[in-house]
């Protein structure tokens, strides 16, 4: 019951935040220099005053700002996020169409980051001054400092020309389209480089985090107790230590979802991955404001969803919070 109340509070908060994002979107568009109608007219290659007036009426720009704001909010509630000037289709459809590709990329990168990061961190924690431990420190520093689009381009250079064993562009083989299982394998092959590029940044962070936490956890009393009970090393490490090391990592994964998404924009641009990031790049290039604003709103939705999900997972793996919630 407590959980339900808690979740309800989270959702109510989410609605308020999203509403605020929408209002800010609206204000930004109107604060920005330049008239959206002029932009459209420019895209059309110039337009007569009559056409401009007609466009103004079509987009409701002849009403007062407050009226326009409420019209905008009303439309959004009905799932209408506007119409993309450049792609010539509704923004919502455009985003939903690109969403899966970005989710594949984000999920693959997260798996790589959490898996490799935790393993590296845990192993290196057993010898805090060992070679691997120093390696993790160096990796964490390098992973933070290397611009993600640069690592991407270097990997593209490596696997695109020096040692061409992996596809470096797109999501599927355009020349030789596949179906069924072969299609999935094709996508997976195209996913390797983008997800490694995106994952690497987070491998660096998580391994450092896992290492520091594991060192803390391993010196805790309950680990000594577990050893004293005569439990095998493996059981102590996995059942007792790892579980408690994972908690901060889960928190960080949740908190960093926004960064993961922003990173995806850059990575998708490097590898022409047809997701939302690529959509952002195209809409920046064409100054397609409705699409850009739609993506910004959707990223907020995803960040909030990730936060709520993190909160739930957190409760699942940390018995103290579960006990507190009861």
């Amino acid at each position: 019951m407590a959980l339900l109340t808690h979740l309800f509070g989270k959702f109510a908060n989410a609605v308020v935040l999203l509403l605020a994002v929408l209002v800010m979107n609206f204000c930004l568009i109107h604060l920005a220099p330049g008239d959206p109608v002029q932009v459209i007219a420019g895209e059309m290659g110039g337009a007569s005053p009559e056409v401009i007036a007609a466009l103004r009426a079509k987009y409701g720009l002849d009403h007062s700002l407050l009226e326009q704001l409420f019209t905008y909010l009303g439309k959004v509630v009905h799932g209408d996020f506007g119409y993309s000037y450049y792609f010539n289709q509704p923004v919502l459809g455009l985003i939903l169409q690109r969403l899966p590709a970005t989710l594949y990329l984000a999920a693959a990168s997260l798996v790589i980051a959490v898996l490799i990061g935790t393993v590296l961190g845990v192993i290196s924690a057993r010898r805090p001054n060992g070679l691997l431990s120093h390696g993790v420190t160096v990796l964490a520093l390098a992973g933070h400092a290397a611009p993600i689009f640069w690592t991407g381009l270097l990997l593209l250079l490596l696997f695109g020309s020096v040692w061409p064993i992996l596809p470096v562009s797109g999501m599927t083989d355009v020349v030789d389209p596949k179906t069924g299982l072969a299609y999935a394998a094709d996508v997976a092959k195209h996913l390797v480089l983008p997800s490694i590029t995106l994952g690497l940044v987070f491998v660096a962070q998580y391994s450092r985090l896992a290492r520091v936490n594991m060192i803390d956890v391993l010196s805790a009393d309950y680990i000594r107790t577990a050893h004293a009970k005569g439990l095998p090393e493996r059981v102590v490490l996995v059942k007792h230590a790892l579980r408690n090391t994972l908690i901060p990592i889960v928190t960080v994964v949740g908190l960093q979802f926004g960064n993961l998404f922003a990173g995806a924009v850059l990575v998708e641009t490097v590898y022409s991955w047809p997701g939302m990031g690529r959509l952002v790049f195209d809409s920046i290039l064409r100054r397609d404001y409705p699409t850009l604003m739609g993506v910004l709103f959707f990223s907020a939705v995803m960040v909030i969803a990730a936060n709520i999900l993190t909160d739930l997972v957190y409760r699942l793996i940390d018995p103290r919070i579960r006990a507190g919630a009861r």
Partner: protein
Amino acid sequence: MSTMESRLAMAQKPVPAVTKVPKAVSPARAALRQFMKSPSGVAGAVLLLVLIAGTIFGPWLHPVDPLDIVGMPFAPPDADALFGTDYLGRDVLAGLIYGGRATLTVGAVAALITIVIGVTVGALAGFFGGWVDALLVKISEFFQVLPPLLFAMVLVTLFGPKLSTITVAIGAVSWTSAARLTRAEFMRLRDLDFIKASRAAGAGNLHLILRVVLPNALPPIIVSATLAIGTAILFEGGLSFLGLGDPNTMSWGLMIGQNRNYVLDAWWAVTFPGAAIFLAVLAVSLVGDGVNDAVNPRLRRR
């Protein structure tokens, strides 16, 4: 302030007959001394100084305009152009020198904006608490919901790719962590005895915030400022890479963004500016770690 208080407290204790009076060392000097003991911190500082010196004195050694076409496009590195030429035939080395000025300046100024906003918000929230805190926390929460880099992209697209817009946009989207940190420090400090004493002595809120609490909250803020420079440099790079760089000002990010489609023809035009960003952020992080160890001895990492 705190050192004076503690010295006062010490003076009241009974003093043994023979004591060595420790020489008074200012906290800043003590921190500097501690910083010099960290090899990686010093290495980072040296690297950073070399990069800054390169962008300041580079033009004397290599007087080439980074926007001038000096030769054939895609000329590989050779004696004429040490780092090759880009897709328009512009000198990459000149781009690195002048681009560094823009990138490092954007990094420093954007970090300054980040810290000023973050510290102001965090200080007000932490110091006053109550509804001020609730409101400011809500605003920070709003900013945390939007991915900073994506938000910056939207702002720069809307308000135009100028160096000033880019700098302000980066500062405007990345202040939340500095605010959170400052708020926590202020909440911890505001109820301590020496603050109460100042208040009892009649100090006003502004005086308390700026002259009493803030100096004691500075160590973590300095660390966070250092790290903010690195993030800002990466953001400038990311924005320029997406075509949101100022086309009239060469920057490291702009070089990568403009040449990225030709990476298979001219690796040098992308690899060198990327390496420059990498080194700059690495240097700043190393300095940040060193400063952290110097000012927060309690938190010294294993």
